[in-house]
């Protein structure tokens, strides 16, 4: 009952009528003409959803699920709601997601610039009716597709709201429709099989009845012929038959001819065939499917420009974040090209994995191996570009320990000996 009153309330709210609920009474007024005409009754309506007359509203109409009004509502809705546009509502959580997904070793996301794009998922809802004898089964099958492929998805798992048409950029969906239709056909097969087997059993019983009946009839006929033949034979065996016997024989003979000529068996066979066919038709299974709704489900994809920053440098990370699939585009180490989750920011702006990120021996700043491509000729220490000093004499790169001023220690030693 509560189901019903809620349905009715929603229905009338949806029609933008004035609806007031008082307990089990629904007071509906200002119903649009389109529905009034459809129903054949002018508003206001006083609807009583309990099964007892109401004292306060003695004129209210008692509504049960078999009530005329409910079936009118059903008819009214029949061709409504065939197409729907929805949007999945996601909490905007790109920063958290990125911070959870990646570990930034030596930098922080400072700010994010976002650009929203949409992905479309199409839900085809097929309704299949199985009709047999006086029964009807109905199943609805939702099938989801996106980008020309079937996908596993459940709209129920997401919070959604009405989508905006202008954000929809959809191509032809016939391909998706075709593959969804094939899938729907596949999904109803088990039901066809189950119902078919059940019907087969029922039909078999009826066919047995008919076959039994007609074989009895045919047997009875043959029995009768045989009896007549026997009678005839006995009479023929009588020696010196009198007139009476002769007459009897003639009578039996003509009766036999009549029966043979009457094509009783042919008629019975034809009748039998007719009734078997009739019964088979009666037990046939009708399966009819139709697309009752197509819903386009929009789901955002964010183009993110994240500003990754530390005291030494800044790097803009271009990421694509998909909150539906909970994915974000990959980050690779600029040095070894491997995919990384732990991200380091090289002081010259490279992204680097843990193993490719080192400190410069002199300035101690983080540099990736691409940048630490300098080393001291004397001690071999890796140096950043800024810390590697070239000696003006020998032109070798040296660290701060092995060079002072513009001449390295080695060259300075040589000079000393010479003097």
């Amino acid at each position, binding site marked *: 009952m509560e189901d019903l009153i809620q349905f009715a309330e929603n229905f009338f709210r949806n029609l933008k009528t004035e609806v007031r609920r008082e307990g089990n009474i629904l007071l509906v007024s200002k119903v649009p003409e389109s529905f009034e005409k459809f129903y054949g009754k002018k508003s206001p309506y006083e609807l009583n959803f309990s099964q007892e007359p109401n004292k306060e509203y003695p004129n209210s109409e008692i509504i049960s699920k078999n009530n005329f009004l409910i079936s009118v509502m059903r008819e009214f809705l029949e061709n409504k709601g065939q197409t729907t546009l929805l949007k999945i509502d996601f909490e905007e959580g790109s920063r958290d997601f990125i911070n959870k997904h990646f570990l930034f070793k030596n930098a922080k996301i400072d700010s994010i610039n976002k650009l929203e794009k949409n992905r479309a998922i199409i839900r085809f809802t097929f309704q299949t009716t199985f009709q047999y004898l*006086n029964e009807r089964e109905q199943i609805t099958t939702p099938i989801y597709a996106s980008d020309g492929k079937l996908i596993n998805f459940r709209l129920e798992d997401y919070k959604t709201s009405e989508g905006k048409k202008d954000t929809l950029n959809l191509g*032809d969906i016939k391909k998706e429709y075709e593959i969804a239709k094939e899938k729907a056909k596949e999904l109803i097969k088990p039901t066809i099989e189950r119902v078919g087997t059940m019907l087969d059993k029922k039909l078999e019983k009826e066919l047995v009845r008919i076959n039994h009946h007609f074989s009895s009839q045919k047997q009875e006929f043959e029995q009768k012929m045989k009896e007549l033949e026997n009678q005839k034979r006995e009479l023929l065996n009588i020696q010196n038959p009198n007139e009476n016997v002769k007459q009897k024989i003639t009578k039996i003979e003509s009766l036999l001819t009549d029966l043979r000529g009457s094509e009783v068996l042919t008629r019975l066979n034809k009748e039998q065939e007719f009734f078997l066919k009739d019964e088979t038709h009666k037990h046939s299974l009708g399966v009819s499917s139709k697309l009752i709704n197509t819903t386009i489900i929009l789901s955002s994809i964010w183009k993110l420009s994240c500003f990754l920053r530390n005291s030494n440098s800044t790097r803009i990370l271009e990421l694509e974040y998909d909150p539906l699939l909970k994915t974000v585009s990959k980050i690779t180490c600029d040095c070894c090209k491997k995919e990384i989750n732990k991200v380091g920011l090289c002081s010259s702006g490279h992204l680097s994995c843990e193993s490719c990120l080192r400190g410069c021996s002199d300035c101690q700043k983080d540099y990736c191996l691409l940048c630490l491509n300098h080393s001291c000729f004397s001690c071999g220490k890796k140096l950043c570009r800024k810390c590697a000093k070239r000696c003006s004499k020998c032109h070798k790169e040296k660290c701060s320990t092995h060079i002072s001023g513009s001449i390295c220690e080695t060259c300075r030693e040589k000079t000393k000996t010479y003097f």
Partner: protein
Amino acid sequence: MVIINESFSDDLELLEKIEHKEFESREMLDLKVNVEELINDSKINEIISYAKIKKNIEFELPHQKDGALKILRDLNGTALLADEVGLGKTITAGIVLKECIERNLIKNALILTPPSLVDQWVAELKTKFELDFKIIENEEDWSSTKFAIASIDRVKNQNRETKQFKHKKAHEITWDLLMVDEAHKLKDRATTRWEFVDKIPKKRFLILTATPFQNDLLELYNLLHLLKRGHLGTIKEFKKRFLNRGNKRHPLNPRELKTKLDEVMIRRRRDETIVKYMKRIPKIVAVELTPEEKEAYDSMCDLLKTKYFKANGNEMNGRLIIFAILPKITSSSRSAIESLTNIANGEKYHGKTRALAAKILEKYKNLKVDSKINKLVEIVKEIYTRDKDSKILIYTRHPTTLRYIVDTLKPFNLKIVEFLGGLDREEKTKRISEFKESADILISTDTGAEGLNFQFCNNLINYDLPWNPMSVEQRIGRLDRIGQKKDMNIYSLATKDTMEEHVVDLIINKMCCIGMVIGELPIILFNLGLDGKSKLGTSKIEEILMNNFINSKNNLNKFARGVDKIAKMIEEGIAEYNDSKIENEELLKNINQTSKSQGGIN
């Protein structure tokens, strides 16, 4: 083995909507899914169409809905519906039909009825079930008709030479539902009628009859043989198992037969339902004529019986004229005067006849008293003395008499509603509610009140009486309906020492008010071969009475003897019917009496 018809609808239209970015709110979809869930039940556990039907029928009778449910749910739509007379089998069958359509179970249906019921079926299907059925007239109609109704007598005909059914097209269509009404006419297997029905391919099959057998259990076998081949075995097996050679009506192994019947039959007795019938109390009111009136009346009968023929020189059909005029001149003095004036001035009549009519007219005009209308006033007064809130329905066959009665009753300060043929629906509805709400008396002609319901009134006065018992049954039927709470007083005026006395006695005392219920009289008349119409369009009984009148040549005794003969015939028919009713009841009684309805309308 099972045939599977798989279909997939063409959904392009819907895809186009997407292309054009036409979307509806999601609530619409939710509501749609919601309502389907609320209503949808795969098995038929309820009659979902009843909500629509309910508003069109006057009284809800649970057994009708229950019966329809049982037929569809338990009997797969193939059943013998054998409720007792008066329980509304037509309504039950209509519910089955409507439900099948509403649930999308059927795409076509065929109803076969006796010729006299075709129009009634069409009207009931329209008003009560909002279904349009097309009447099959010609062979060509079959291909264009999905929901067809046909007179079985019309379509069963065979071509004389080829022995083929003229309407064999009916046999080329698989009918999702076939219904045959008044199937007591299908009890003989060797008739073309039976064969015609047997050859119709059908998925569901409903046979309607109150009396599945009349004289012989084989009739029952034939009906079931038609309904479900082999259900009772071959005829030889049936005879051996169930037929008692000594008594064709009493089966051997009755219990076993009942069990077999229960598998395909629905039968309810009145006492199992909430339907209650009130008594019809016949009140014949003798009208004693003054000598002057008697003389005028007699000479008028003379005009019709003897003089008229002699005076008539041209080729006019004398019988036809009598059939047309007799009821009019016996109706009331005023309608007699009108008729006589017409004859006296009628150029088509022979000069002698006109002169004679003029003479009798003079007698009528000079009458000082009208004993019949005085008697009516007496009855009306008596009714109101007994109960001042009474309502009275007065019937006459003629508009002239109707006016006369209105004029006569006017001075008595009663509120009178007139009801004649030719009123439009709106006006009819207005006058009916006037009668129901505020008026005292409704005066109607037979055509005026056809099919109307006045169960709130329990006094009927037949100012004149049709000679057709079914017309009288129709009159009483306006009162004698479900919802009538009182016994009904059926007053009938009969002029003493005239043939009317005998006719009224026959029709009222021996046919219409003998404790039978609505629907039984036509069955008895059918069994006697007295149903249907004569060549002149009158009912057969009416024709016999008329001929009797002509042949008696104004000899009342001779006329009375003729009436007695009819009475005897009817009496025998009733006795026969009652006997078979008892036998039917005995055999068809449900062993396990289920779902007895409770309560009563009264």
